[in-house]
Every structure is written in structure tokens, then in C-alpha cells.
């Protein structure tokens, strides 16, 4: 069964139309296919940015955001991770340090730092694969 496609008409001024024609030719696509892809990418990017804000403020869960945006839950999760990973890791280390000080177990913080170092290495390896 074929995918259902929705038709959207756009009106472009001459110069914008010429730019779209040239770009579509360079991408070896029809103008329609080019604009459809560009629109989809722009929509996804905007929705992901919006999802990051909503999740960070605690207004919506991943499940709610996926339902509201139509973007897969894992795509939202990965995007959030890319945006906030460093800050979240710093918070983790700060918590571990405070706890180690309170419990007078400096080795605990040392282990937490080693764990973070190992995870950062994993991240670098993942990106290079």
C-alpha cells in the first residue's frame, strides 16, 4: 500500500523561486520534492528545539512530546542528550562530591569521577564510529 501524501501549495516571489529552482537542480530533485524535504527538516528542527524547552522546564514527558510532535521518542531523547549532556554530567559530579563530603568518603567521589571519564570516552568512541 502506498504512502498517503498531503499536497501543500507554496507561493514564492521571483528571486526566491529562482533560488529554489537552482538549489533543487543542484540536489537533483524536483522543486516540489526539494521543498517537501526542506519543510520536513525545518519542522523537525523546530519541534526538537521546542521539545527541549518543554522537557527542560518539566512541562512534558518524552512520551507526551512524541505524541504532540509526531517525532519518534528516541529522536527527541537523543536530541535532548546532545543539548544538555555536559550540564547534566556536571550536576551528577557535583552531587557525588557533596555526598562524598557529607559522608566523609572521598573515594566515592574519586570513583564517580572515574565513571564520568569512562562514559566520556564511550561518547567519543561512539561519535567516531
Amino acid at each position: 500500500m502506498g504512502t498517503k501524501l498531503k499536497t501543500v501549495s507554496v507561493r514564492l516571489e521571483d528571486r526566491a523561486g529562482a533560488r529554489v529552482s537552482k538549489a533543487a537542480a543542484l540536489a537533483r530533485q524536483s522543486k516540489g520534492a526539494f521543498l517537501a524535504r526542506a519543510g520536513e527538516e525545518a519542522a523537525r528542527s523546530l519541534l526538537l528545539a521546542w521539545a527541549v524547552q518543554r522537557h527542560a522546564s518539566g512541562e512534558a514527558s518524552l512520551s507526551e512530546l512524541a505524541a504532540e510532535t509526531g517525532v519518534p521518542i528516541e529522536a527527541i531523547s537523543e536530541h535532548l542528550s546532545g543539548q544538555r549532556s555536559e550540564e547534566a554530567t556536571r550536576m551528577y559530579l557535583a552531587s557525588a562530591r557533596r555526598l562524598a563530603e557529607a559522608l566523609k568518603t572521598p573515594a566515592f567521589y574519586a570513583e564517580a569521577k572515574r565513571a564520568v571519564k569512562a562514559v566520556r570516552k564511550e561518547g567519543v568512541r561512539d561519535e567516531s564510529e
Partner: protein
Amino acid sequence: MRLRSSGGSFTSGRDRGYNQLVRQNATLDSSFWIHAAVSDVIGQLLEDFDLSVASAVGDELTEDYASGALLHGLVREGRILVRNAETETIDRFGPGERGAINLAIENRGWVLLMDDLRPVRAAEEMGLAPVSSPVYAASLYRRGGRNERAVLTVLARLAARSTVSPQLIDLALNQIGQMTKEGSD
């Protein structure tokens, strides 16, 4: 039947530790599954629980992504069951979270594995005992399934993911820190 003694406690700070003599039934939401996959505890999870997921959770986790592909593979192998609650008791939150909470409401003996703070709080208010992925990781340390460094690495992975509430991570860190302290005293 495997005999297992396990510790677990829940997200609210109320320590509702439980002793696990047999594999328990459990259900989960998509965020818990993603976090379990990222932190590499799926194997342990399958040993600890007979897992059932609501179909909405399966719908949310697409096969285009690694954790979704893993879930669907395990469903096809029959190692995870897909079940739905007969009644939609709760109508808030996302579809996967609703599906998981509704299943847990109808199966009060099941463990509810869930990570997002708002539905976790709502589940607690309904008398359910949700377990978050950081607290599940801490229970692995308590049971001797992971050593201190390994479990702190699991928590560091969850923190780096940045989709787990820092409050839930702090709770697990506290549990591990206390256990480490008790072990060294």
C-alpha cells in the same frame, strides 16, 4: 524457580524495599526502556522480571532506533509480552506512560518501571510503587550484581543522557553512597 534476594526501593524517598523470591512481573514505559538500554542493564532486567509492555510503548519505540529494535526483537522472541489494560483508568500523560500505569493499576502485584518524574509522582499517588532506572541500578549494587564503579558508571551514563531527572539520580547516588559508607565502616 530461581531463588533470589534483591533489594529495591522507590522514587519518593519512602524506602519500600522488597525481597524478591521469584521473578516478578513488571511493566515499563518507553523512557525507562531507553534508559535501561543506554545504561546496559537490559540483560539484568530480563533476569529480574517477566516483562510485559503496553502496545502504546511498542508504538512509541520504533525499530529505526537501537533500543526500539531491541524491544521489538525481544517481543518477537516471546521474551517480552505485549498486553493492554482492559480499562483506561488514567487519561493523563503520554500514550506509553498511560498504558504502563493502567497495566500496573490492573495488576497491583506488578512492578512499574518508569522514569519521568510527573507520571512517577502520579503513579505513587495512586498507590503504585514505581521504580526508576537510577534506583534500579542502585538495587544492582545492593544485590552485588554490579560493583561500585560499575553502578556509578551506569548512573554517569544516565546523567549524560540528560533525560533522567537529576532528583532521581541523586536519590540513587544517596543510596549507593550510604551503602558504600556502611560497607567501609
